[in-house]
């Protein structure tokens, strides 16, 4: 049989991990949404002109400190970061899966993809 199968058990574990990631991200986003709407729901919405988000909503550290104070927008953003981490985790686990199979070529390929992902998370600047 051609070797195009990774260990199905590892894949299944990854699938479960992804689902847990999505569910916890959705829970955080929903909780943050309730906090946000309770505090700001009555204010006027304005998304017509692009301004960009506050600096502290753009970095992991800023989001974490805001979320500790239960600021709605930061809790939502934390949920979005958890969601963003799910595909990254999937790629990282694939490195392990290929390593189990002693497939050096695809360990290298997957590490390249992981590096590009981490680079983009750091802002993707050249």
């Amino acid at each position, binding site marked *: 049989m051609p070797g195009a199968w990774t260990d199905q058990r590892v894949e299944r574990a990854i699938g479960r991990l992804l689902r847990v990631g999505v569910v916890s991200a959705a829970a955080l986003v929903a909780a943050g949404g309730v906090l946000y709407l309770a505090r700001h729901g009555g204010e006027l919405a304005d998304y017509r002109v692009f301004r960009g988000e506050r600096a502290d909503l753009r970095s992991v550290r800023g989001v974490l400190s805001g979320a500790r104070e239960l600021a709605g927008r930061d809790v939502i953003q934390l949920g979005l970061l958890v969601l963003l981490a799910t595909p990254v985790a999937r790629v990282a686990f694939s490195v392990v899966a290929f390593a189990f199979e002693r497939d050096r070529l695809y360990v290298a390929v997957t590490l390249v993809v992981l590096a590009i992902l981490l680079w*983009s998370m750091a802002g993707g600047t050249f």
Partner: protein
Amino acid sequence: MTIAELSAIVGIGSIAAGFLGALTGLGGGVVVVPLLTLLLGVDIHYAAGAALISVIATSSGAASAYVRDGYSNLRVGMLLEIATTLGAVAGATLAVYFAASIISVVFGVVLLASAALSFRRHEDPSELGPPDPLAARLRLDGVYPTPAGPRAYRSHRVPTASSLMFVAGLLSGLLGIGSGAVKVLALDGAMRLPFKVSTTTSNFMIGVTAAASAGVYLHRGYIDPGLAMPVMLGVLVGSIAGAGVLARVQSRVLRLVFAAVIVALGAEMIANGLRGEL
């Protein structure tokens, strides 16, 4: 309009978008962006940021089901992911420099092309041809389950597929969509993988590509939590409902109606972009 009202409207609209996206197989992003920009006047950069988030949610949420079925080819996905993630970072970077009107026109054209592509006929290769030397060396051939038992398939034209995948990543980063239509074109059209293998491998790739774009978007301040919240939750609920219904209805009429909706949205995006330009 207050934030609470906008959130409610965006939430309901996103449920519809996720439902439609799951039924057409085009994903939620292609419907969310026109909804936000055309109906609610949201700047396309914010709309793309929110849509990207929903793309990751649906891709990761659906992954466990696909993995269980054993169709996706992880080696093909990972190898081509080098091209899509590079394209995604490039596209997300370009989005900064492009005016909303230009992005709107490109979006419209991609919608029209996606609608056309969704009507391609899919015929799985009936017999195993000679191996493609490069694909064989990269161990991209595989086996997939059929009602008659496991069946082997071969992969072809790796460079063509990689180029198409770079374009798919570029569009994903620029427009905030999963560009599943282009990905399936690369896997099914260029590599000649069986259709089920193409769609499931594409779904895996969509989440990783969108994450690469979203990283750049987050740093540039394109991801607004107030807008992403109703979009992510709505699309997630809608796509789960859509996937449940999809197993029961497979009507050609339904696909035609949805294609018409997509074409109308695409034309409107183009017109909108051109008006903004004048």
